[in-house]
Each structure stands twice: as C-alpha cells, then as structure tokens.
C-alpha cells in the first residue's frame, strides 16, 4: 500500500500544472517535474544537478546578486515575482513560491528548498499595460514618432496609434505580443538575443546608431527603420521605450547622395586626368619654343644681330610666362581640390629665406635693385610645409622684384609683432609702384591684374592668389599694406614650431 501511495504522490507531483522544483543548499536541481519542463523548456535530464540560476536567470540579470532564494525566511513560504529565461531565450515573468524544508530527523539528508512556479507573463503584461495606459497614453499619442513600450520580457505593453499605423495593425491588437512580431522572421532569433542583453544593461541608444534595422508590416512587407531605445523606470520595474521611424526616405536620400558622391569622385578623377594630359601636352611644344629660343640666344648656331636678339628674348620671356601660367594653374587646381599635399614639420625660417634670396639674386642684380635681408641670429622655427613656404616667399619676393623698377626690396623675419608668441612673421617690402586703395580688396583674387602705368608686367595673375590660399592651408595668413606710388609690404604670418 505504501508503495502505491508513493507512486500516486509521484504522479501528482509529475502532473501538477505548475512547475515544481527542488534544490539543495547549493541551489543544484534535485527535482524537476513536467510542469518545470513545460515552463522552462529544459528536460528533466538536462536540469538535474545544474545550478538553478544558471538555467533560468537571464544573462547578467541585474537582480542576480539579490536572488530572493538567498534571503528566504527560515520557516514558511515566500512568494515573489521574478524575470526568468526559457531555454530558447524567451524572457518571462514567473510567480515563485519558495519554502525551506528542514532536514528530516534532525540530520541525515541536507536541507532543501522547494519551489512552485508559474508563468504570469500575460498577467504582468496586462498590469503593466494598464499602468502605462493611464499614465502615458495621451502623451505618446502626441509624439511624432511611432512609440512602442516593452516590459522586461519584450512584450508590448503600450503602443501609440502612430506605431500601429506604421506597422498596419488594428488598434490594441499588439498589446501583450512579443516585439519580434514587428520584425522580419529572419531577424527574430538574433533580436531575442540582443533584447535579453539590453534588459540586463539598459541604456539610451540614439536613433540611427548601430545596426541596419528593418521592420515588418502586418502584410509581411519589410521596410528600413531607425530606432531609439531608452529605459523607462517605473514602480513596476524597468521598461524599454522604443521610438521608431520609417527610414525609407532617409535611405533613399542616402543612396542618391552616395550616387552623387560617386559621380563627383569620377568627375574629379576625370579632371585630374585632364589636368595631367593638359600639362603634358602643353609642355611638349613649350619645350621646343623655350629650348630653341635658348639655343639661338646662346648663339650655338651662329651670331645674332641686335634686333634678332631682342625679338628672341621676347619669345623666350613669353614662353616662360606661358610655363609659369601652366605651373600656377596646376598648383591652383591642386589647392582647390585639396590635393596640395602638405608635410607639416618644424622648418628653420632662415634656411628657407636664404634659398629664396639665392634664387632671386640674379634677377635683383639685373634690375639694379638693392636687396636686404634682416633675420635674427637665433633660428626661428615655423611648423609648416617647406615647399609651400618656399613657394609663398618666392611668389612674394618675385612680385616685389617685378613691380619695383628702382629702389630696394627688404625681406624681414621675426616673431609676430604684437601677436602671440606662437607665430613667426615674414615681411617683404618694396619701394615699387604700390597699389591703389581701390584695388586693395581684390589684389588676392585670381587674375587680379591692374593696368600698370609703367608698362605691362609678366606674370600669371595667380601668384598672390595661390600664396594666400597656401598660407591658409598652412594655418597662417598674408596681409598687405600699400601706398600707391611708394611701395607695398606683404606680411606672412605662420604658426611657430619647436625644434624637435
């Protein structure tokens, strides 16, 4: 009789509608009935001997440390609600009744805890939904975005009509549903996993950050979405507020923009190719013009009379002018395209100035000008690109020589006067013709050339423009002071550097 009673007890235990679980003091599973198998999805054979929290608590659950099982009263049942994870990852609310059972006969077997558990997710959802409905519904209806609020199990507890319209569902029909209903099927499993992680560590995630997300309408059609997530603390626990925006238009714009960018990039490439070809094609005939003018002026084929020499020199200077135009145009094209590669390094200003001075000396002497260079003895260092600096100073100095028919050119170097200690300043002063006040505002424009009263001047009209653009690229500036008929001073200011 006792045996059949035992068998009957066992049957009742097995077939009880709720989960019945027993664990030892180390929370290892000793008993796992059919109800527990149904609730958690783990077969008895999988559960026995495992630690209960490792089986059913969500990963990194925030309440992991404060497991009520650790704080059970010594006697009598204790009931609480807990967030639990099924074997397939689905989160649910479980109503738990736990009770300590003292060892029988004052020893022998170890103390146990018996748990009766049942799924109260739907009840909880209804409760959360009611709570939110009264508190937030009107507010969320006013929001421009579709809003879906989820509880910790990922069930929809509040949805505004914007969201229902976005996904095509009738009003109220999504309450209590897992949020995965709004996702394409292929993404649901992965989302379940992400969601469990989010519940463990809720944080604000801004719209458009992270993954390419897709929504699924009730008719099965998919559309791209932007989603922002924020935790919403309520007395009933942490909920997740999710604002959803149809990203179809944004994606369309992005695709159009990408296409435009590609077109632009290929147009830029075509331009680069064109410039390279143009440069190549112009240089070849210029080689003959400059070259053979040179051989004639060197009198390699034979003597020249004065007229021939003068006319050949005109050809030569025109050829050189054409060459400087080509070089300047290519430089300008590179600067405009931000392709002028700068190598910023500490550069000793005195070295650069001496180089520039050396290259110009011949021209200066030919024109019978005085040239003076005033530099401090101690090395002044600029943090700059040597080639660009050389080009600017060459342009400014050559300009001075060009527009100065008699008198002097003075080039100076020093720390920025009255400015910050972190700058160096170059000045190029000439006693040339100067610039009329009305021309000052446009002096640095491309092809800004003004009628000279003392005859035409050679040059591309791009030198100052390029110099100013280069100075800007170097983080510096060029300023001009000029008095018509007396001369001009160009001042180049650059960031100072330290000797490394």
């Amino acid at each position, binding site marked *: 009789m006792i045996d059949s009673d035992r068998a009957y007890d066992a049957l009742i235990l097995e077939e009880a509608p709720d989960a019945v679980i027993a664990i030892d003091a180390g929370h290892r599973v000793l008993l796992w009935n059919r109800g527990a198998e149904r609730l958690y999805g783990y077969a008895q054979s999988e559960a026995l001997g495992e630690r209960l929290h490792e089986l059913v608590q969500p990963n990194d659950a925030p309440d992991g440390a404060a497991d009520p099982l650790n704080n059970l009263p010594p006697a009598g049942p204790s009931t609480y609600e807990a967030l639990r994870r099924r074997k397939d990852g689905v989160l649910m609310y479980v109503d738990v009744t736990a009770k300590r059972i003292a060892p029988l006969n004052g020893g022998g077997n170890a103390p146990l805890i018996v748990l009766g558990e049942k799924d109260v997710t739907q009840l909880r959802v209804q409760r959360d939904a009611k709570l939110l409905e009264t508190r937030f519904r009107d507010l969320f209806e006013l929001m421009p975005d579709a809003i879906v609020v989820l509880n910790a199990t990922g069930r929809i507890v509040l949805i505004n009509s914007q969201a229902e319209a976005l996904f095509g569902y009738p009003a109220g029909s999504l309450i209590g549903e897992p949020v995965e209903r709004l996702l394409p099927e292929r993404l649901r499993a992965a989302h379940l996993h992400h969601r469990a992680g989010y519940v463990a560590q809720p944080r604000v995630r801004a719209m458009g950050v992270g993954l390419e997300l897709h929504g699924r309408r009730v008719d099965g059609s998919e559309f791209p979405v932007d989603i922002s997530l924020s935790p919403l603390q309520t007395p009933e626990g942490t909920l997740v507020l999710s604002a959803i925006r149809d990203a179809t238009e944004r994606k369309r714009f992005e695709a159009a923009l990408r296409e435009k960018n590609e077109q632009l990039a290929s147009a830029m490439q075509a331009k680069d190719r064109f410039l390279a070809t143009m440069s190549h094609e112009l240089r*070849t005939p210029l080689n003959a*013009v*400059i070259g053979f003018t040179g051989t004639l002026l060197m009198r390699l084929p034979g003597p020249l009379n004065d007229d021939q020499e003068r006319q050949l020199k005109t050809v030569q200077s025109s050829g050189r002018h054409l060459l400087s135009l080509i070089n300047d145009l290519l430089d300008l094209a590179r600067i405009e395209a931000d392709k002028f590669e700068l190598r910023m390094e500490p550069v000793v200003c005195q070295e650069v100035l001496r180089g520039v001075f050396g290259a110009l000396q011949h021209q200066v002497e030919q024109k019978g000008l005085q040239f003076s260079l005033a530099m401090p003895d101690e090395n002044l260092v600029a943090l700059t690109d040597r080639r660009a600096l050389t080009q600017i100073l060459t342009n400014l100095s050559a300009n001075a020589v060009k527009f100065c028919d008699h008198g002097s050119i003075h080039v100076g170097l020093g720390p920025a006067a009255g400015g910050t200690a972190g700058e160096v300043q170059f000045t190029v002063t000439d006693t040339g013709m100067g610039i009329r006040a009305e021309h000052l505002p446009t002096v640095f424009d491309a092809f800004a050339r003004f009628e000279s009263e003392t005859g035409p001047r050679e040059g591309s009209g791009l030198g100052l423009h390029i110099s100013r653009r280069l100075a800007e690229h170097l983080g510096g500036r060029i300023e001009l002071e000029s008095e018509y008929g007396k001369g001009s001073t160009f001042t180049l200011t650059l960031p100072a550097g330290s000797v490394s």
Partner: protein
Amino acid sequence: MTKILVIEDHPTSRELMTYLLRCAGHDLVETGDGREGFDLARTHRPDLVISDVQLPGMNGFEIVAAIKRDPALAGTPVVAVTASAMSGDRENIIAAGFDDYLSKPIDPETFAQQIARHLPPQRSSR
C-alpha cells in the same frame, strides 16, 4: 668622347636635346622607339641614356628596368626627360630606377651640365 643615347619619340624634343649635347661635345645615338632604344643600348654601350617615359614599343619604365637587369648595362645612368610633371611623377620615376628626372621644358642653358653630372669621370686614354 662620351656617347649618349637619346630615346625620345617627339622629333623636335629629340632634335633639341641632341643638338645641345652635340654642341657640348658628346657623341649621340638616337631613336624614337623604345624597343629600338634598348637594342641600341646593347649594341652601342652608351655612357648614358636619356629616355622619355611615354614611348612606343617599350615605355621608359620598361627600358630602365631592362637596362638595370642587363649585367652589361646595369651601371649605365639613365635620366628621364619627360613632360609628366604632376605631383608624384618625380617620385614614381626615381622609384622606377631612373638616376635623375628632368621635366620639360628643359632649360637649354643648363641642360648639358645637368646631364654631364651623371657621366662617369672621363678616362684620359680615350
């Protein structure tokens, strides 16, 4: 007399360079075709080769590679004279093994000196 091979397909440019170099007292061998240029290098063993980069037959890069690979020619300096003067061209050309790079238009007053810098010191016995 030093012998200089000029490989340049543009007749006027070739005439200019050979004229300047002849006036400076060098012996000249010339062609407008890249492949023929390399053949001439092997048969004439010039003291220096001047080559354009864009050439029919074999381009300048192929010529300089072939010369530097050929044990009999490997020591011969090769100078590129080219109208390719965009940024990066000089670096590419030097990296390809050319000993120097001159961009067109050349400076007629200094061209012969610039070339002579790469000539081996003259043996007095010749």
